[in-house]
């Protein structure tokens, strides 16, 4: 009966989510056998694809008729979501059909964007590169497909030798990367979503999965509905929808999460409840060097204990505001061996001027207490983008990285890449390129003042909306006549507003693709419909520009035999001219780029699955290894013998890429340090920014879906009713928020979705008309270079009331 409901729900979803749009499978070489049965009599053809939005990585079934996506269902064969989707997922088909889709390349002439041909556009870009190859940068994203990111990576690092490529993931999970690297010696979570099915306690650190990873969170809530006991602990700076489901809510003063984690470690040692066997077998200790560094310096258990000495529950209470007995409660939980604890975190921990340290501390308390290495015992960071892991982290599209966990600073890693890419020795530059914040700062600085990034090509992201302190990092470009901004986009955005060249892009199922989600799961899909007008694949754009440069004789576009660096071939092995759009889909370019990339993944045991296996699966978690049975097996739990075939027999647990080369992980001591900008008498409240359930990031897709836009029409200011009263503000009144960087007017929403404590406000960032990032801080973590969007000092007052600042400033 329940199942009938479910089925009914899904069925009606398929009908109701119908949006306009034609079926032309780009590469019909493969059959999704399992979906053949789903081919309906109404002529709708179904195929699988990962959802376009968040890092949860749900799979959807896409119904296509007459070259249009007409229906969406949750994919029941997918382990991640087992048929369920969140409100965004159910409407994902609609993102293709906004009225203002970009359909033609446009060049800015006399201040106006005017239609040009693709040939002209490719030439304009090639010329910018040719003139100043060392000042050309690509800014990409965790929404790049793996082949797209790989092509851009090869173009910049193997072709232009300047390493100026970075993804928006820098703004998002860079601190998670440095956290994993400095703990395990290799990036990405050891655990996976299965931990959520097995844990007894789930602790969410500055995390609101009920809104940001809803399908994942429902996995836990469903367990409760079934009568299982799972204790949820929300450690946050404001009450959210997640809090409503939590057994405990511990509210901390922003930035003091560091002290809470240290308080737990302090108690584990004080009470002797840390896992002595685990620690002696699997852990070494570390602390930071004088100036922060990725691997710090060696430490000892004794020194570690001593450094933690001051973090008594009372001291932690004084810093964080969390009552000492709650810190003891956490200490007791971690001290227990009979329960399994999963920690989840996302932007609250990562977008933090001590984000790397906070990541380290979370790994540390799990290691110290032995809550690691068993299903349900896991410290797991979540990602916000569908391929932040797949494309940013694994393909290594970061300014310092190379594919498969390699880095440009290492001679042997560069040599390795040069070999795999068949490039002359020394082609890859040993100097890391500019990370996101630096790249944009250099771009927005006049050339004669040292701004040595001349042209940026933005692909699949919206920095004019998301960069912190937008004036400094983006809007200042406006007055710099010699700088040139190229933007590949699907809709007009805050970024295209300043673009000199706009390239219309194909999106999601309008192209072939591969994503990698938060749990190391690589997911593949095929092109199902044509892109509108003259919109084309991002990957094609990169290859077309590269080939134009090859024709112009740019040495970097040749391998060591003088051949073009992107060699896509047909079955007979002869080159297919995929740089000509009419030939791009003659073969599966995606598959060939993916196969080339796959060779890079073995060194760090991140073996992604063969393409053909991905075609059949609903994603596979790497390392994917062929076993004696001749079949390919995924690895839900990394480093753990029962799951990971790279662990030596009998070891149980093995950190086989250990920093200390002894198969051990590192437990770090990192102190609590104050935020770089804290409230003061002038700017007395904390400003936190974030997302909402209905809109995905900058809303460029979701705000074009009527249902989602109606459900969440625009940004708002969330504040404590007491604070509002003091300012004479009530629901719907317009407030002015001011920081040292700018000011904005926003309507107040009291007792809405979130409930900030006194002295703290929250503003979602999805709204293009109300850009809160004009106010955010832009200070970065010294190791990961990730900026803090979660805290800065602000002042709020009612519109029409005199500015409190005018008094002090006169």
């Amino acid at each position: 009966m329940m199942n009938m409901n479910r089925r009914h729900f899904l069925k009606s979803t398929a009908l109701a989510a119908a949006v306009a749009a034609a079926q032309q499978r780009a590469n019909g070489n493969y059959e999704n056998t399992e979906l053949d049965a789903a081919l309906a009599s109404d002529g709708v053809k179904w195929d699988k694809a990962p959802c376009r939005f968040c890092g949860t990585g749900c799979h959807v079934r896409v119904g296509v008729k007459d070259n249009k996506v007409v229906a969406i269902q949750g994919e029941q064969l997918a382990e991640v979501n087992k048929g369920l989707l969140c409100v965004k997922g159910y409407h994902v088909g609609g993102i293709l059909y906004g009225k203002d889709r970009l359909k033609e390349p446009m060049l800015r002439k006399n201040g106006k964007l005017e239609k040009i041909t693709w040939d002209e556009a490719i030439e304009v870009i090639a010329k910018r590169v040719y003139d100043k190859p060392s000042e050309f940068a690509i800014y990409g994203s965790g929404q790049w497909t793996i082949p797209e990111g790989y092509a851009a990576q090869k173009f910049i690092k193997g072709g232009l030798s300047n390493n100026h490529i970075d993804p928006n993931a820098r703004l998002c999970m860079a601190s998670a990367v440095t956290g994993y690297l400095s703990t395990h010696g290799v990036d990405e979570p050891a655990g996976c979503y299965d931990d959520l099915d097995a844990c007894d306690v789930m602790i969410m650190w500055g995390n609101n999965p009920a809104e940001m990873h809803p399908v994942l969170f429902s996995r836990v809530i469903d367990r409760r509905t079934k009568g299982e006991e799972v204790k949820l602990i929300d450690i946050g700076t404001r009450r959210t929808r997640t809090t409503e489901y939590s057994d405990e809510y511990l509210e901390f003063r922003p930035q003091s999460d560091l002290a809470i984690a240290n308080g737990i470690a302090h108690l584990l040692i004080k009470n002797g409840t840390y896992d002595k066997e685990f620690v002696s077998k699997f852990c070494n200790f570390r602390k930071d060097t004088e100036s922060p560094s990725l691997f710090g310096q060696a430490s000892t258990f004794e020194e570690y204990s001593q450094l933690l000495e001051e973090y008594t529950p009372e001291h932690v209470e004084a810093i964080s505001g969390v009552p000492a007995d709650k810190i003891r409660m956490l200490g007791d939980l971690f001290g227990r061996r009979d329960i399994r604890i999963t920690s989840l975190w996302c932007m609250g921990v990562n977008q933090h001027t001590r984000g790397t340290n906070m990541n380290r501390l979370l790994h540390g308390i799990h290691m110290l207490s032995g809550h690691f290495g068993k299903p349900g015992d896991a410290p797991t960071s979540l990602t916000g983008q569908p391929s932040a892991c797949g494309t940013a982290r694994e393909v290594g599209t970061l300014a310092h990285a190379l594919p498969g966990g390699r880095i440009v600073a290492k001679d042997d890693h560069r040599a390795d890449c040069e070999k795999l890419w068949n490039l002359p020795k020394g082609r890859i530059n040993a100097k890391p390129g500019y990370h996101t914040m630096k790249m944009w700062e250099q771009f927005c600085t006049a050339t004669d003042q040292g701004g040595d990034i001349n042209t940026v090509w933005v692909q699949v992201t919206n920095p004019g909306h998301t960069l912190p302190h937008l004036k400094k990092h983006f809007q200042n470009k406006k007055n710099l006549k010699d700088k040139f901004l190229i933007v590949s986009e699907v809709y007009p955005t805050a970024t295209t507003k300043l673009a000199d060249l706009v390239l219309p892009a194909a999106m999601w199922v309008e192209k072939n693709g591969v994503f990698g989600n938060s749990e190391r799961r690589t997911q593949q899909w095929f092109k199902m419909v044509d892109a509108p007008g003259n919109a084309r694949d991002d990957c094609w754009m990169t290859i077309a520009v590269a080939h134009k440069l090859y024709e112009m004789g740019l040495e970097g576009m040749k391998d060591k035999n003088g051949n073009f660096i992107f060699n896509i071939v047909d079955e007979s092995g002869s080159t297919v001219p995929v740089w000509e759009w009419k030939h791009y889909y003659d073969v599966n370019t995606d598959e060939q780029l993916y196969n080339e990339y796959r060779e890079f993944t073995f060194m760090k045991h991140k073996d992604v699955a063969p393409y053909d296996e991905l075609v059949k699966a609903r994603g596979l978690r790497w390392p994917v290894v062929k076993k004696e049975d001749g079949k390919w097996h995924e690895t839900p739990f990394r480093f753990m013998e029962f799951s990971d075939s790279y662990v030596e027999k009998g070891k149980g647990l093995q950190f086989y890429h250990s920093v200390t080369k002894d198969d051990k992980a590192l437990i770090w001591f990192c102190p609590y340090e104050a935020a770089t900008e804290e409230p003061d008498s002038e700017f007395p409240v904390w400003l936190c920014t974030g997302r909402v359930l209905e809109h995905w990031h900058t809303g460029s897709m979701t705000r074009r879906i009527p249902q989602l836009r109606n459900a969440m029409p625009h940004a708002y200011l969330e504040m404590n009713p007491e604070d509002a009263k003091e300012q004479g503000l009530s629901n719907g009144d317009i407030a002015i928020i001011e920081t040292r960087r700018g000011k904005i007017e926003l309507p107040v929403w009291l007792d809405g979705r979130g409930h900030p404590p006194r002295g703290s406000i929250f503003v979602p960032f999805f709204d293009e008309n109300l850009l809160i990032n004009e106010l955010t801080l832009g200070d970065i973590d010294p190791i990961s270079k990730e900026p803090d969007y979660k805290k800065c000092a602000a002042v709020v007052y009612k519109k029409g009331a005199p500015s409190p600042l005018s008094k002090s400033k006169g």
Partner: protein
Amino acid sequence: MATLSRRDFFSRFIPKASEPEVTSKETAGPKVAIIQGRFCLAYQNSFCSVCKERCPESGAIVSERGIPRIIADKCTGCNICHNVCPAPTNAILMTSPPENHSGATPTDTQPAHPFF
């Protein structure tokens, strides 16, 4: 100073910054809203609270453990919840007031069922 009515505030969400709503409104009549559980996202544990957040009548939509329920007595039939419901099939049905005070039909009050 222009104060907007509670109703304006919630139907347009927040004034000034609002853009026109994309769907057409149905005319409000002497009706009450009911939530059809089989279409409601919250009932599938897919987390939604839009109707409750936007209902201008305090207490007309209550929620327990994230599942919304309409209190027919308090509902004025203003239609806002129907207009803003983002479920793939609109989960809010505007119907004639029931004889007894139940906001939901019996089949709709089932608890969310386990999904995984």
